[in-house]
């Protein structure tokens, strides 16, 4: 029996937009689940349905063995961290944390104990008297988290909470959220469009596209075995290279090169996928490649260019100590078992 269960949940807006198509999902107690997908894919809607801020069109949501479809958000025992934090601007940090507890009618000394404990955990004890306007972005973020933690809810919901922070702070807060979730052990759902965030935070990942969960699994599973072109392209940075071609008699064929011995009976148009990190240079490599541009990241070089005789763009990743100049010609091979072939029509993985 799972802790949170979505049973054939859908969301259709009054104007007919299908935001979430029939979705079923189980989340275990203490699990850190991440919803990732492009903007407008329905991931936030799904989260808000769990929170009770959106009605469910059909289906059931069950939390801790209780169907919560009709239960008021305040009684669902969930806490949410919003993208813009939604701190109460007219209250100081202490009252921001205490407000939810006050509404639950807790005794004053109990509230004080809980707020102080949460503040200590998040290292915001020094700012309790301040108003949110006087806090930095990172501090506000902590207060927003504190407001969620202090109520010790059954589930934490995070709605892209890191996207308002600058790059450095984002990475720092990402680590802190992960550490904190481990420490507190509360079941969490985290919504993001950033695949790096998704990969690093998740125990399990749900890649969502057009209101459908395209793939569900641990980050490594999804990275290694994407089931569709969309997932393959979305997870991994830089993006997977896609080369269109044809598959016939176990042979993948484009104008530029051929790959034989593919174990599939499929006959028709396909897309070959290969990650930039799975390409290697070889003297008589399969893919002839003209370098246009090299991005030097220090630890790695990202080499961009065109495949010879075929105008497809390609990205190739090499260690940073390797010297490659733009304009040079390379020959690349694909590492063994590291190529993916997708059906061009359906986008589904063939092999």
């Amino acid at each position: 029996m799972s802790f949170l269960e979505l049973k054939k949940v859908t969301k259709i807006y009054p104007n007919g937009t299908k935001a979430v198509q029939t979705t079923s999902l189980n989340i275990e107690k203490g699990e850190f689940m991440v919803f990732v997908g492009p903007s407008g894919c329905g991931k936030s809607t799904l989260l808000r349905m769990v929170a009770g801020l959106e009605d469910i069109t059909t289906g059931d949501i069950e939390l801790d063995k209780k169907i919560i479809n009709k239960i008021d958000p305040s009684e669902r025992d969930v806490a949410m961290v919003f993208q813009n934090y939604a701190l109460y601007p007219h209250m100081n940090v202490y009252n921001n944390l205490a407000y939810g507890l006050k509404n639950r009618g807790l005794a004053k000394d109990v509230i004080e104990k809980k707020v102080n404990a949460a503040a200590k955990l998040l290292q915001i004890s020094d700012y309790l008297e301040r108003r949110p306007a006087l806090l930095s972005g990172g501090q506000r973020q902590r207060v927003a988290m504190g407001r969620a933690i202090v109520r010790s809810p059954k589930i934490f919901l995070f709605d892209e909470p890191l996207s308002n922070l600058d790059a450095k702070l984002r990475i720092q807060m990402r680590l802190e959220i992960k550490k904190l979730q481990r420490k507190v052990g509360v079941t969490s759902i985290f919504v993001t469009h950033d695949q790096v965030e998704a990969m690093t935070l998740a125990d399990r990942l749900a890649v969502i596209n057009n209101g459908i969960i395209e793939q569900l699994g641990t980050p490594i599973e999804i990275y290694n075995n994407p089931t569709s072109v969309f997932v393959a392209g979305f997870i991994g940075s830089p993006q997977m290279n896609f080369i269109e071609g044809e598959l016939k008699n176990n042979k993948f064929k484009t104008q530029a090169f051929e790959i034989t011995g593919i174990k599939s009976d499929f006959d028709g148009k396909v897309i070959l996928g290969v990650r930039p990190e799975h390409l290697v240079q070889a003297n008589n490599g399969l893919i002839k490649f003209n370098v246009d541009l090299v991005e030097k990241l220090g630890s790695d070089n990202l080499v961009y260019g065109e495949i010879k005789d075929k105008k497809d763009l390609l990205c190739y990743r090499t260690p940073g100590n390797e010297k490659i100049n733009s304009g040079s010609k390379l020959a690349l091979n694909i590492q063994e078992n590291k190529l993916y072939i997708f059906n061009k029509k359906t986008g589904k993985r063939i092999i």
Partner: protein
Amino acid sequence: MKIKPLQIIAHIILLLGVLLMVVPIWISFASSTHDSVTILTEGMKFNLGDQLSRNYNEVLNEKGGWSEEVTAGKMFINSFIMAFGIATLKVVISAMSAYALVYFRFKLAVPIFWLIFITLLVPLEVRIFPSYKVVSDLGLTNSYTGLVLPLVASATATFFFRQFYKTIPDELLESAKLDGASTWRFFIDFLVPLSKTMIAAMFIFMFVYGYSQYLWPLIMTTSEEYWTVVMGMKIIFTESYEGVAIPRTAERFAYIILSMIPPVLVVVFLQKWFIKGLIQTEK
């Protein structure tokens, strides 16, 4: 610091504006400190006279009106009750109706809003006969309720509150909901404190509006017990000294000066809130 010519011009214009505002008040004040006879023979005065305490004392304590019962003091109390009642109720009702219009997404919210807005075209003076009929049928003539009630709805304030509430991010409401705030609590704990400055501003406007009502109290009241200051300006001290036909001009000036004090006090007092709210920009 270098002073630019543009700044000098700006200051001259501002000073002219100040003079335009202040000089008439000064003349009224200076004239109120003279004897009525002096003003009658020499015209209005720029310098101070020696009759200040006598004139003001007389204005505040003399019983006037047809029945010789109402004093200026009583009229001030009436005006204050009326203005305070109007301002308070206007702010409360407008804030609440704007809350309903913005946050309760019922079907007719937009048409109802426009209906409220249209009432701007129908001020009290236009609908004074029907209003009088309603109030008199309710038996509210000659009462504070009757003075205040027909004026407590405000399209302007509703509009301002509505615009303000619309700028408050939805997440705040959602977050409050998850924190267990009821509909009523959200209004009291969030919208009211967040719109403090708006409330202060609206209160000032509406207080001055209520205080300067003339036609309505004039029609509404037959008993001198409910006369207001602005009405009194027309009516009081129009009689001459017994026997001698000297208009009591000095006393009337004193009365005018006194009548200006309450709205000025309200502005000065609430201005602190006003500025406090403006400096403390809350995001």
